[in-house]
């Protein structure tokens, strides 16, 4: 669901994904110095983190925790 995984083997701790996430879903783990998923329930599946990650370490599933609500469909 939503952002699934940040591969700790691939993550270089650059923090770009944290800046790319406008929903504040990702945080830096102070101990491991790697990006971690902190609030997956607020992920909106924009995939900015995935697109901006220089190491292709992020996996995002297209299914949101909170479904998109539309005016009609």
């Amino acid at each position, binding site marked *: 669901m939503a952002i699934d995984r940040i591969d700790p083997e691939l993550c270089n701790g650059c923090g770009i994904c944290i*800046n*790319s*996430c*406008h*929903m*504040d879903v990702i*945080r830096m783990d102070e101990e491991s110095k790697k990006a971690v998923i*902190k*609030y997956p*329930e*607020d992920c*909106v*599946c*924009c*995939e*900015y983190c*995935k*697109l901006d990650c220089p190491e292709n370490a992020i996996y995002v599933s*297209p299914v*949101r925790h*909170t479904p*998109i*609500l*539309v*005016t*009609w*469909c």
Partner: protein
Amino acid sequence: MTLENVVEADVLVIGGGIAGCFAAIKAREQGLDVTIVDKAYAGKSGGTRVAGFGYVVFNPEWGHDLDTWMNAINKKGEYINNREWTEIVLKESWTTYQALDSWGVDFTPESVKSIDPTKALKIYPPFAFVNLGLTRTGPPSRKQAVKSGVKIMDGIMVTDLLKQDEKVVGAIGFSPTSYDSYIFKAKATIVSSGIVNFRSVAEIANLTGDGETMAYRAGAELTSKEFPDEHVMPLVPTGCLCGEAISYANYIDAEGERIDLSHTHETRLALDFAFHAGEGPIFWDLDSATPEVIEKMCERQDHTPWRHEAVRSFDPRNRGKYRIAGGAWAGGQNSHTGGIWPINTKCATTLPGLYAAGETCGTRFLGADHPVPGFGLLGAAVTGSRAGLGAAEYALQAEEPTIDEEELARLKKIMNAPAERKGGFSPRWVTQILRNTMIPYFIIHIKQGERLQAALTIVEFLEDHLVPKLTAKDGHELRLAHETKNMVLHAEMILRASLFRTESRGTHYREDYPRRDDPTWLAWVKLREEQGRMKLFKEPIPKEWWPDLSKPYEERYPLRFPGE
């Protein structure tokens, strides 16, 4: 809150999109100390990252005629565009384009072309625009701001403006990450935090109208909240293809009948009505597209590497029929219409010391509807420049700001309250209730007095009972709590303004008042807080901007609303 930080600046800019960057750079060029604060990351957050097909450029050297452009906007804006602003924005499009180009924004000038008016844009004459290339405008604008000496503070959620003797002297906020609090003292403050939407489309889900609501709470006047945004979006393969669906407007209903777009006011409303009539689901039909249309779409795919993977893997050459949904930016206002009321062309507001830029600034330069894509970025750049210069001029003469300790204590208490509350309501849940109330098409698009009133009853209950008891277990949830509070307040503004304008015009459609009502509603709706209540009033449009009332209605308004 753990640590209290005090940040001083001559000019404080809240929101670091293209408008905020322009404002900061212009103020900095006047030799001032400028700080941008953004709740996410300046240059990446908000509407700037998704903005655009391109940048509208008016240039007489390319044969553009001001009167032709103005007339087209006046007509599409249904005569309630602020013509002073319309002219300013058009005339300053070339200089702002050049500035962006010099900052390294990747334009493709060879792409300058006229938009084909026979497509979605129907009767309107061609405007020219320059395609945006791979980098978008955000990152180069941020880079330029840093280069010119602007300080940038990312990841700080500003909750309220600080006032002293009725002047705005800064703002307060907190970091959702460190949970530190921040007090910003500034001679002048610019809000440029974008539009609002009710967490609809993914890319702009953090736009919760924070700037407009904090200005409202501080006593500023706002305008034009009754004109909703009009994007549609395909549900398959993803929810993010709205640009393509708008540029190639070809839709069929459940029975495969093509939906006639030629008579109604605009695509979005035509689709709303087909759905309302029980003809849904509605599909975007690529099977009948000409090879030229498909080729154009493929070209654009090459320019959108930043988009969702599903969009990048979408191949128009495969054609097909894609199910469409309404309300891509549900809760948002029509571009550059609603926002904080500017009292002059320097983007000053009714509050001394407060300036507004970008979508937060209610210039109304496009009136009741926007004519073509590409005006959003342009309006943001022009109002950003002007707000930056206006705020700098003010700051150069302003006294050193002092902070009213009592007011500061009051706002701090409000800021922290959700985190200190033991029991109450979760912001995520209240946001869901708000979305369920506001987003259905029969509330936000096809409006009617009793339905608006019903939604308002619920929204008022959210405001009176749930919002005062929002809870937050950490800094992240504290941000959600304030965002929820701001979205709920916006919902009230949208509903009240929609009830107030008892006619239909542009993107505002009232089933119970399906005609434009001239000259009664050749006016703007303004609102402000008075004694804790939202007060609405009418601001007449200068008579010289009225359409020719001696002409028949059908000539003034060639497009029909359903039910007229």
